[in-house]
């Protein structure tokens, strides 16, 4: 399989992630979409690492992406719980005090 196949998968995953963020009316889906995007770039890194003749940079980046995703998920979830506690809703569109 050539690199284009992997690229296709990663781009598709990237697009799905953005669609997920934009379309679902639940803040948790936004978090899931972000995970998808990060996974898409993970695929890229791993694939490019392999196809560019080995080395270690790409793999290292993937590991750090995983760490970042975990950290971000933790903070995001705390914030989401706080918002839910205050607004009694998981809809991002309900929290629109700040606008215009």
């Amino acid at each position, binding site marked *: *399989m050539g*690199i*284009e*196949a*992997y*690229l*296709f*998968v990663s*781009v*598709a*995953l*990237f*697009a*799905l*992630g*953005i*669609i*997920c963020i*934009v*379309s*679902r*009316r*639940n803040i*948790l*889906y936004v*978090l*899931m979409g972000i*995970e*998808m995007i990060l*996974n898409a770039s*993970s*695929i890229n890194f*791993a*694939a490019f*690492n*392999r196809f560019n003749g080995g*080395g*270690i940079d790409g*793999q*290292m980046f*993937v*590991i*750090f992406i*995983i*760490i970042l*995703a*975990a*950290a971000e*998920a*933790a*903070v995001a*979830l*705390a914030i*989401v*719980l*706080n918002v*839910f506690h*205050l607004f*009694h809703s*998981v809809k991002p569109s309900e929290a629109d005090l700040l606008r215009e």
Partner: protein
Amino acid sequence: MSELNRQRLFYTVLAFLAFGSAGKGLLEAGVEGLMFSIFASLTLGGAAVCIWERSVVRSAFALMATFLGVAGFFLILGSDFLAMAQVLIYVGGVLALLLFGVMLTKPDLNERSLPRIGAATALIGGGIAFLVSQMVGVGVKTWAMAETLEEPTTKAHDIGIAFLDPKQYVVAFELAAFLLTVALVAAVYIARRRTEDFTPEEGQV
């Protein structure tokens, strides 16, 4: 078409696509192709189901399929350590965290998601398709990379050395540690509930 029928149709199409691509992969590139097709189907199918599903819990489990599919990619790309980390941290950690979120919040059961998904897919999909056409280069070998690959040489051992080698990633490693500390403190601070943090009128509206 009823909601149920639409869902059935969606899953049927997905399954068809998955089997089709798997078969095509087997025909074109042998076992590796088959593996690739399976993992691609798992990844993209999981993501599609995740977006499509009404229930948050099911979506979260569909996302697990995506994560596992990506882990599979890591495997066939020769990065077994990555695959392991992906399964452990993503599936075991991040997804569990998301599930906690699902359980701690009250999902909105009246969400009608289909029309919005359709519109968003059409718009964003169109835009991204344009970008991809530019990026991958239709008909031109813009990437010019090897078609067949040698055996991967990097092992988990090398990754461990790279983490601690003062000429490679030790700073990034330590910074990641500090980042996790900050994230932990931040998450704990935000999530910790104490009565004195909330004046009565602010907390209850």
